[in-house]
């Protein structure tokens, strides 16, 4: 019996109990015999009833029934005349026997009920105490390993059973035995049934084969955290209701403990991530500031040479102009490298807002200014383009890079075209030029970092422009591709998903 914890009964085996009962009755007989002359038979009956009561309290129901019968017999044989025989001289003693037996049995009955109640109360007390201790230990557990160990210890000590805890993998597709040396075979199918349905599953068939037969889902407030599988070590019979409800309580305690650990992990993770993010962005902006400050000074100081009075000779001014241009190129390069570092670091925070594409196109062309001076830009946007959700600063960067590339490689005075049209669920934006196009064998690598279409060309550049475009477009959920036009020239096309543009309340006319 799993809960047979009563101290009294544990100490006496069945045989000893019979012997003790017989001894008690014999002792009573021996004690009462010398008193026969002094006491009424009625009082001797009382002594026997007292014995039955004591036996009932000390040795339990069966012993007390035995004691009742022996007492009646002893009383008959040793005390009721004629003594030392079962025969009874006076017929009225039969009533005494009957009353004595009934009284003894009734006493036995009520005493044993009381006893049982008391035992149950003690048992419940112990269970509650054990669960309380368990809850305390689980509350202090810092790792899943500890939870599992505490569980296994509890199941072993309280139920003399073995258990394993099964936890789902990260994708919740499979369940694995969590960190334990215990070697309890489990029925995987039943584990899954319990995990999927969130219900207690038992199988008495597998129990005989040494498999765990009870499967409790670990149901936490948010979701099911795993399964507890239990097998009783040596118990052929059914597990008692008490053990099942205890295991049920155990399962919910474990579930809550596991969920708590899960959220501790989540909180720690996000804190670490936040700190890393903050560190990264502060390093990048410090770097950006430190690199840009001297460049700003160089550009400005070179410019200020033009303001020197009296004016410097033309060759000196040419040098100043060259200084200005080189410093600006360096600044653009630094800008590209920093952008790439930021985009590569992953998880760029997009400031996405709904807006017409037209606006950012106009802004890009204006921003490039002189860089496009030698190329007329033809903008052809479909009339009915929807609002798109994007980060204007970043998409402006994409358009600037593409237009700048086109202007750099296409011969002067050839037009650059910018097209945009909606096809299904995306808007396609294309920048086309009439330059030499991309070399066919390198087209796939173009969007990798530090790859340039014509590596030996005299054109300045780092091969970061298209890589940045790709990172930005992909962060927006779009794609980007480069191609050569059949009529000659290069074409870069990127897409932006359409989504569900917000409506605009009509203005009362």
């Amino acid at each position, binding site marked *: 019996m799993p809960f047979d914890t009563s101290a009294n009964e544990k100490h006496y085996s069945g045989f000893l109990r019979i012997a003790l009962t017989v001894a008690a009755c014999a002792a009573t007989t021996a004690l009462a015999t010398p008193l026969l002359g002094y006491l009424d038979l009625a009082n001797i009956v009382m002594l026997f009833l007292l014995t039955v009561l004591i036996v009932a309290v000390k040795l339990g129901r069966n012993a007390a029934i035995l004691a009742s019968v022996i007492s009646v017999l002893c009383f008959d044989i040793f005390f009721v005349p004629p003594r030392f025989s079962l025969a009874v001289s006076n017929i009225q003693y039969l009533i005494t026997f009957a009353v004595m037996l009934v009284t003894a049995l009734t006493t036995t009955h009520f005493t044993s009920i009381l006893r049982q109640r008391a035992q149950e109360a003690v048992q419940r007390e112990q269970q509650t105490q054990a669960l309380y201790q368990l809850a305390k230990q689980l509350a202090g557990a810092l790792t899943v390993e500890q939870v599992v160990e505490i569980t296994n210890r509890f199941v072993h000590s309280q139920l003399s059973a073995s258990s394993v805890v099964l936890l789902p993998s990260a994708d919740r597709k499979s369940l694995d035995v969590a960190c334990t040396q215990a070697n309890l075979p489990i029925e995987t199918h039943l584990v899954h049934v319990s995990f999927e349905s969130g219900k207690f599953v038992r199988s008495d068939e597998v129990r005989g084969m040494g498999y765990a037969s009870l499967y409790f889902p670990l149901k936490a407030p948010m979701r099911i955290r795993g399964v507890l599988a239990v097998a009783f070590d040596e118990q052929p019979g059914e597990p008692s209701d008490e053990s099942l409800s205890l295991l049920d309580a155990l399962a919910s305690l474990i579930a809550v403990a596991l969920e708590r650990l899960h959220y501790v992990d989540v909180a720690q993770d996000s804190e670490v991530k936040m700190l890393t993010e903050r560190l990264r962005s502060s390093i*990048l*902006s410090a770097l*950006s*500031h430190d690199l*840009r*400050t*001297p*460049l*700003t*000074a*160089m*550009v*400005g*100081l070179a*410019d*200020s040479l*033009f*303001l020197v009075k009296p004016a410097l000779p033309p060759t000196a001014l040419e040098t100043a102009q060259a200084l*200005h241009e080189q*410093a*600006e190129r360096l*600044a653009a390069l630094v*800008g590209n490298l*920093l952008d790439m570092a930021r985009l590569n670091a992953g998880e760029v925070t997009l*400031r996405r*807002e*709904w*807006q*017409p594409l*037209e*606006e*950012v*196109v*106009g*802004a890009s*062309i*204006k*921003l490039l200014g002189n860089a496009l001076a030698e190329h007329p*830009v033809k*903008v052809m*946007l479909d009339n009915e383009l929807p*609002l798109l959700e994007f*980060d*204007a*600063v970043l998409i*402006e960067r994409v358009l600037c890079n593409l237009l700048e590339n086109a202007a750099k490689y296409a011969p002067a005075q050839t037009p650059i075209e910018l097209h945009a049209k909606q096809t299904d669920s995306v808007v396609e934006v294309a920048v086309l030029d009439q330059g030499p196009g991309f070399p066919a064998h390198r087209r796939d690598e173009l969007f990798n970092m530090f790859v340039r279409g014509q590596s030996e060309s005299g054109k300045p550049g780092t091969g970061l422009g298209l890589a940045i475009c790709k990172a930005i477009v992909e962060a927006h959920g779009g794609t980007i591709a480069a191609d050569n036009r059949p009529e000659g020239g290069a074409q870069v096309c990127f897409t932006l998903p359409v989504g569900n*543009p*917000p409506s*605009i309340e009509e*203005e*009362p*006319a």
Partner: protein
Amino acid sequence: MTTPAKVLIVEDEKQIRRFVRVAVEEEGCQVAEAETMAQGLLEAGARQPDLLILDLGLPDGNGIDLIRDLRGWSDTPILILSARSQEHDKIDALDAGADDYLTKPFSVGELRARVRALLRRRSRSPEGASPVIEFGEVIADFSRRRVTRNGAEVHLTPIEYRLLTVLVGHPGKVLTQRNLLREIWGPSYVESSHYLRVYVGHLRQKLEIDPTQPKHFLTETGVGYRFLP
């Protein structure tokens, strides 16, 4: 102008201060310099400059606080110098009351153009803006609520008209999205930037020669809009 305009430069980097000073002096202004925010605030109080050129990354504090302090008692135009990575700082500075910004690195030519524009606006302000403003092919007569383009009347909806008056009322000044949305649609619309973008688009359609490459209603990407006459 009889007296030269006074310009205060607050910038911690000595070499940048040097060329900014040269450029501003070239515009015929009298220049004072400050290295820190505290010093800048003192100088601004003492000298009452006509223009403040302010670097946002000062060693002893955020330039935005200086703007807020200054705006408490002065409407001197403020030109911000900022690094590109500080997009939101720029917006905060403009929201706090700065008038314009330059992104580092910038050329002396750009700087002088901005300084001129800001000083011009100041010298003109006392007489009040004229009710009639001309730009491109457009004449806007605000006293008669009439807008014409090449002589033909242009019909504007009430919101378009209101947007036009706000933009035109601050020529050269960068108005942040948040500012414009609050001013025209009300405080509950400050996050609905698509309204603003769509209506600026309408204005461009009706008033710009090439709406895709506007010359007057300019986008400051990620920040807001600027009207240039």
